[in-house]
């Protein structure tokens, strides 16, 4: 009985302390998020100024059953990004998330983007596809959205959207 009473008192004390700390942790999280926002802005301004900013995003067509393994991106014939997807990342893409696969700088004018994907189809067969696109970089930042789909979906395997 005595052990229990002491234990309950200690638990109450600990719970109070945890509650107090929890509020402080929430405050520091808020501060760090605000720093992250400012840092992000500084980084973008310094490293990717708007006149040369290029970002490439990857998404999966809605309801597609393709099990995406990897994506490779080349810009003007030069490798820009290569990504191998984990289960969690693939799940995030399948649920409608969009991955920023590449951020970099590029001069204004005409350019070429080549996207290659590898994966497995619902039947278990290996699948790979490559496609090239032309795009124009203007003065404003260029955002390219690449939507991927398997051959069973009836949609284009690799579709490019510009923002």
């Amino acid at each position, binding site marked *: 009985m005595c*052990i229990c009473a002491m*234990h309950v008192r*200690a*638990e109450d004390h*600990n*719970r109070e*302390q*945890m509650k107090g*700390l*929890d*509020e*402080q*942790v*929430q*405050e*520091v*999280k*808020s*501060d*760090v*998020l605000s*720093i*992250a*926002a*400012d*840092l*992000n*802005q*500084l*980084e973008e*301004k*310094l*490293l990717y*100024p708007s*006149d040369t900013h290029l*970002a490439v*995003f990857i*998404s999966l*067509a*809605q309801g597609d059953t393709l099990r995406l393994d990897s994506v490779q991106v080349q810009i003007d014939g030069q490798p820009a990004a290569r990504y191998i997807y984990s289960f*969690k*990342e693939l*799940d*995030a*893409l399948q*649920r*409608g*998330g*969009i*991955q*920023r696969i590449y951020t970099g700088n590029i001069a*204004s004018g005409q350019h070429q983007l080549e996207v290659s994907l590898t994966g497995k189809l619902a039947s278990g067969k290996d699948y790979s596809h490559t496609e090239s696109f032309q795009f124009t970089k203007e*003065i404003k930042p260029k*955002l390219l*959205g690449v*939507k991927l789909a398997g051959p069973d979906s009836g949609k284009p395997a690799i579709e490019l959207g510009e*923002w």
Partner: protein
Amino acid sequence: MARGLQGTFAVALTALALARTTVAGDLRDLYFGEALYYAYQGQYFDALQRLDAELAQHGRVDEPELDSLQYYIKQADFSVGDFELRYRMHLRAGRAIKAVLDADVDLPVKNEAAYRLARIEFQKDQPGDALQALGRIQGTVPDNIKDDVEFLRANVYLALGQPTDAVDVLKRLQTAQGLKGFAAYNLGIALLQSGHSPEGVRQLDKAGQIDSRETATTAIRDKSNMVLGSLMLQSKDYTHAQLAFDRVRLEGPYSNRALLSSGWADVSGQAYEKALVPWGLLIGRDPTDAAVQEAKLALPFAYSKLRVYGRAALLYGQALDSFSKELEKVDASMRSIRAGNFLKALVREEIQHDNVWVVRLRTLPDTPETFYLTELMASNDFQTALQNYLDLEDLHRRLMAWQGGFAAFEDVIRLRRANYEPLLPQVDAHFRELDSQMRLRLEQRDHLQKRLQDILTAPRPALLATADERVALEQVRKIEAALQHSSGAEHDTLQARVQRLQGVLTWRLYTEYPERLTQAHKDLHQLNDDVRKLQEQYTAYVRARQAAVHSYAGYDHSISRLRTRVGEALERVDMLLARQGQLIEAVAIDELNTRRQRLEAYQVQARYAVADSYDRALKEHATGDKP
């Protein structure tokens, strides 16, 4: 939740898990999609960072209705609150959702916001505020949250000590598929708390027999049976207590406690032989489990009641050995925790990828300090403290990386300055030269354009004369002037020739005027094209010139400010990390101390009982009695 509801009769809240956020259709806003990409992976800091930036950007644009986030703005506002909630930032999440609630939005959106706010208030142990938030729900509630809203309302009533109101709500939820087991169990608890014990017991009996293969539902079914069994035991209805404990699965989280209680139900009904079965099974299980340790004393107790003193003495002896070993284990665990190994084990990267990583900790051979703490680690308070510790660790890592990044930023700036500064004066001088030439040409173009515009209303063919024609006209004018001062026989002939020449030129200027005017406009158009290209080049140069300067100038203040903020945040994070770590260790050591004291008490009991059992065994042997 209210403290009064904790313990045996705690209500079930598991079904209040947040709904999965999914986006229907193809996303039109890439950055919102990116925030979701991180959120779906449980990386809420990154998700919030991106979504905050996107929302701030949306707030800054001149025409927000043209911004791609406009299509998802309500969802994005909700998502911020959701992500904050999942990142355990209840204070901020509440503010975000309150903002939606106070905004001019549709009723279904307001209702959902009110529900989310109520859920936050409830999680913050503020059931009064939660009820107030639920009161803001009006009209039709969306089907996907209808049952959850009512379940939350019932739990709020229970937390406020209004079980009768909770009963009314929970009765209506008995057919809700998503709440199977939970609504039934909570109704049982609400009935008990409202003083309707027979009905409450019947309801718990019902909840304890729900058919399901869902992990959460089977766990709540086991819990119902545990509570029911305990109630039956208290009211000395051992048969029904036995029935309830027997319904608890043998491999669930309540199985050890059920086996132990089942034995006690038998013993209470003086069925000592029957108690041997569950306790005999239990003593072979995990020796660190409290129920197993109690069974090690309970089993020989049952044997002694059956007057099998020799067996009882032997089992008491085994229990003594086991308690000694466990005490050593507890001491080793305490030493290990004090050496900081517990925190090290908790932050091990490889196990955190697993959903049940706290349980998995026990399977790691080099984490003995966690053996006694599974139950503690599964508790809500401990999980919050642990998650905060892990979040602080993550913040520490980020801040350290950012702090290191400032030097790289400064390096980039220094190199850019060194590259551009010597070049810019020459470039600027050359540009000034070109700029003045360009301005002159532009003035000329404007002059030509004006003249052409003028002759459209008042035709002046002479203005469209070619250079040769202008020379010829000038010569004719000079000859004509000279002829005015001359006389003689040839004067008239010359005058006539001059007039003829003038006539030829005038004829040509007037007859070719329409074609010349058209051609002049074409030429002006061509000139305008060239001017436009020139101006584009000019603008591109000005922009490039600005970009060159902007690439290294004006960063010093913001970098220095950010460096200070990062340094201050790092100090705070480190301080909180240390406090949180100490608290986790203190809680773990408290728990181990309690277990240690209990083991010591068991040891004393076992020592006394082993001696007593040997005495009795010897006496029986001497008198030749048989059990």
